[in-house]
Structure formats: structure tokens, C-alpha cells
């Protein structure tokens, strides 16, 4: 197969979106396997060389199959200096931040150290990735803000990491994934919510995860396309668990961000939850109000993958239910299902709603002046 790219990467930039935007889901990558070593104690460097990583789930490091494109990324996102897509700040600036006038970019590193059975190693890797985010990204470009990655299966260690980073302006949220050892509302994860609430940081729940559970609730699917739609099912059970275990009731100032799992399903999940809660509320007396109320008050949604129904009115119906003040624009750069900012929102949206969608909601939620 003969693939030719243009000689100059600058030529590959896209039309500039004039108004400033926020991009609430950017995936920075490591250029080399050992890039985190400077942030890891010698003890853990040796451990990795001798024992590697023992995860809850197989094939955590490499994808179980090629995900539609190399590294599940845009084919034009390889940095000119080499390395995987998303590993070069200067190329990210040229390809994403500058041409799209991104004023706030939220980093969500994946494959970091979450979902590892050795909880001490997990904590060390997460802490390393947090240092690395400051060193390589946020200190070099003030538009970028990091997510605190935590060893999610050890709630106490995770809370300690959050408390250590609290108040550091490089970080704007805590990052969890949707597939864990148990559904996200369960008590082992509560210390995370408590620490995040104390720190005033939203908790982002990004699709994926390495808890060892199958990618869909009905088992391992045959096709990648099934995994893609499985993310929203997984996110729905995570959100139902958060509501029904009483997490929102217990932590009323907690803000959750559902990242990269769509949002079109939000109203129907809330309607179903409300209906069954009316009949079965005595099973969960901790849940004092209809589930939809917690969801509308305490949950935000990143847009990518942006819903794309044939009739734009259908999209507006969903957004009107969720609230125009609850959506956070995201591209998912450099991943292949990237949403182009100038092309995702259909015509017919008021200026105020456009501004909220593209920038204002994110600035408000993440406390960016």
C-alpha cells in the first residue's frame, strides 16, 4: 500500500475557527516506552523491567485489535519528528490548538497506570503521569490543563494523590475510566469522590477501562463497531450506579463529567431510572430525590462523539433536556473519531448557546477565568 503524506505538516492544518473554544478531551501520548522513568522511583523502574505490568485485563498495553486506524488515531496526526500521535506538543499546537483557536485544552491521558493489580505500582505510575503532564505539557503551554490520574482501584491511595495535587492550577479535574472492577458508585471509590469534592474538582469518567469486565454487558463482542457502541452502555451503568449507590446524595457538591460516550442516551436513562425509582425506592432510601434531578444538577457531558441524527431537531430535543449549560465541546484529538469544531453543531443555535457549548460551560466548570 502506497501512502503519501504532504511534505510539510503545516500545510495540513485546517480552516481556523475564529471564536475561541475549549477542547475538553485531548489525549497526550508518551513518545517512548520509558518516558515516565524520570518520574518513577528506581524501585518501580526495576519492577517494570523485571515483572512488567499485571493488569486486571489482558491486552491493556496494546489494543486487542487495530482500532480502525493506527493507535486509534487520525492518520495525519503523526508528529513530523516521529513517535505516536499525540506525543508532540509542538505538533499538537500546529495541528489542533492554533488553527482551532483552542483557549482551554483538557488533557486526559489513557493507558496510564489505572486498572493495575499491584496497587502500589498503580499509584506510582499515576503519580508519574501527573508529574509528566505538568513537565511536558501544561507548564509549556498555558492553554493546556491536566487531569489528575489516580489509581482508581485503591480509593485511599487515589484520594491521597488528589489531596496532594489539590490547589495546583495545572490540574482541573480527576480522571476515572468507565470500566472498573466494580460499578463506579460502589464504596471502594467513595474516597475518590470525597477528596475531589473537598478539592472542588470535577470527576471525569472517560469511556474505556481495564477492570477486567467485558467491553459490553453481554460479553466480548466480535467487532470493534460493537465496542464503540458498548461505551455508552457501560457509561449508563456507571451513571446508574453513581445515582443508586447514593454518591450524589452523599457528595452534593460533586460534579461528574461523562467523557466520550455520547449523550443522546441521557434523557432515556433518566426517565427509566425515575420510573423504577418511584416503584422501588424503598430498596434505596439513600436516594432521596428522583434520579433525573441528581443527573441534571451534578453531571456534565463532553460532546465527542457528537450525536448526529438525521433531523437536527432531534438533537436539539436531547440537548434541551440535558441543558445547553451542561455540554462541553471536545474533539478527542488525536483519535480517529475526532470531531472537527467548525462542523459539529448544526445551524439554528443561538449565539448564547453556541458560546456556552464551545467555551463558556467549560471555563465555568473548570474554573478558568
Amino acid at each position, binding site marked *: *500500500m*502506497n*501512502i*503519501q503524506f504532504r511534505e510539510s505538516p503545516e500545510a495540513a492544518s485546517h480552516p481556523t475557527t475564529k471564536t475561541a473554544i475549549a477542547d475538553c478531551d485531548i489525549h497526550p501520548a508518551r513518545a517512548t516506552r520509558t518516558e515516565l522513568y524520570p518520574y518513577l522511583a528506581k524501585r518501580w523502574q526495576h519492577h517494570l523491567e523485571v515483572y512488567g505490568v499485571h493488569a486486571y485485563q489482558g491486552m491493556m498495553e496494546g489494543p486487542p485489535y487495530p482500532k480502525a486506524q493506527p493507535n486509534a488515531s487520525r*492518520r*495525519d496526526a503523526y508528529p513530523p519528528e516521529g513517535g505516536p500521535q499525540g506525543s508532540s506538543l509542538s505538533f499538537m499546537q500546529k495541528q489542533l490548538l492554533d488553527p482551532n483557536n483552542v483557549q482551554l485544552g483538557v488533557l486526559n491521558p489513557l493507558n496510564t497506570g489505572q486498572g493495575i493489580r499491584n496497587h502500589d505500582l498503580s499509584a506510582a505510575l499515576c503519580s508519574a503521569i501527573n508529574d509528566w503532564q505538568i513537565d511536558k505539557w501544561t507548564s509549556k503551554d498555558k492553554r493546556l490543563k491536566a487531569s489528575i490520574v489516580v489509581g482508581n482501584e485503591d480509593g485511599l491511595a487515589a484520594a491521597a494523590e488528589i489531596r496532594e495535587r489539590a490547589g495546583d492550577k495545572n490540574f482541573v479535574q480527576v480522571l476515572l475510566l468507565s470500566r472498573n472492577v466494580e460499578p463506579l458508585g460502589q464504596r471502594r471509590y467513595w474516597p475518590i469522590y470525597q477528596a475531589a469534592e473537598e478539592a472542588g474538582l470535577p470527576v471525569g469518567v472517560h469511556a474505556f477501562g481495564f477492570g477486567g469486565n467485558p467491553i459490553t454487558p453481554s460479553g466480548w463482542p466480535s467487532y470493534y463497531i460493537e465496542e464503540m457502541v458498548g461505551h455508552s452502555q457501560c457509561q449508563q451503568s456507571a451513571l446508574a450506579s453513581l445515582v443508586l449507590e447514593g454518591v450524589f446524595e452523599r457528595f452534593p457538591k460533586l460534579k461528574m463529567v461523562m467523557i466520550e460516550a455520547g449523550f443522546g442516551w441521557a434523557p432515556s436513562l433518566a426517565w427509566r431510572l425515575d420510573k423504577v425509582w418511584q416503584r422501588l425506592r424503598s430498596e434505596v432510601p439513600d436516594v432521596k430525590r428522583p434520579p433525573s434531578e441528581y443527573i441534571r444538577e451534578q453531571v456534565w457531558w463532553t460532546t465527542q462523539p457528537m450525536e448526529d441524527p438525521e433531523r437536527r431537531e432531534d438533537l436539539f430535543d436531547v440537548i434541551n433536556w440535558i441543558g445547553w449549560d451542561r455540554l462541553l465541546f471536545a474533539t478527542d484529538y488525536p483519535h480517529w473519531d*475526532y470531531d*472537527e469544531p467548525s*462542523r459539529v453543531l448544526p445551524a439554528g443555535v443561538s449565539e448564547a448557546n453556541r458560546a456556552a457549548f464551545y467555551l463558556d460551560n467549560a471555563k465555568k466548570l473548570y474554573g478558568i477565568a
Partner: protein
Amino acid sequence: MARHVIAPVDELPPGTRKFLEIEGRPIAVFNIKGEYFGLMNRCPHQGAALCEGPLIGLAQSSNPGEIEYTKLGEIIRCPWHGWEFDIRTGQSYCDPRRFRVKAYPAHVEPGASVVKGPYVAETVTVKVESDYVVVEL
């Protein structure tokens, strides 16, 4: 319809493509097994530089369980979301009713006719002895 000389034939062997901008439009010209095709280098979906994607074939199924893989090297897959288009026609395979990329006819002309005109040479020095790939738009 203006005709543009884009390369001497031996600079565009089978399986290769050339990117250029003509009249402000991003264009790519492909040599597929000795035939030439021009396409707008902008994806009608979200605007990626479509022609920088890989050339693949077309997977189709006439009956469940029977899969045919044809048109090898004739389908371009967008580097962003992977939508597939037929290089020969610009036809989309995921939604042919709503989407198509603009296709521009391309072919070979002998140097003698190119020099006579009515051709515009795009960064190509034209000599009478060679043959040239020409695109129309």
C-alpha cells in the same frame, strides 16, 4: 473547462498520487493501474484532507457470510473517520445519496499538444518529447 498539466507521466507511476492546489482548490491526482483520476482533497464529512488516506479495497457482502473484497487500490479511506470513496467517481459508500467528493477527469496528453495549449502547467516544465498527466476543472 481549464486543463492543467500536473506532472510528466514518469513522475506519477501506478499506485502513487500527487497533491496540488489549482485555482485555490486542494486537488489530488492518482495513478491507479495506469489510469488517472483527480479528486478534491477535502472530505465532504468534516473536511479532512481526504486523499491522504490509505488506498484500500471494497468489502461487500451479497449474502450473510459471503464477503467479497474488490476494487483493490481504488477506494480511498479518509484519514479521520474512515469514510470510503470510490476514486473513479467520488462516490461515497456509506451514504451515496447525501455525500460525494468532487471528481475531476484526468488523462495523458502528448507534449506536443500540451505545448500548443490550451493548458496551464502547474509547476511542471513542459517539453515536447514527453507525455503529461493533465487534469480538467
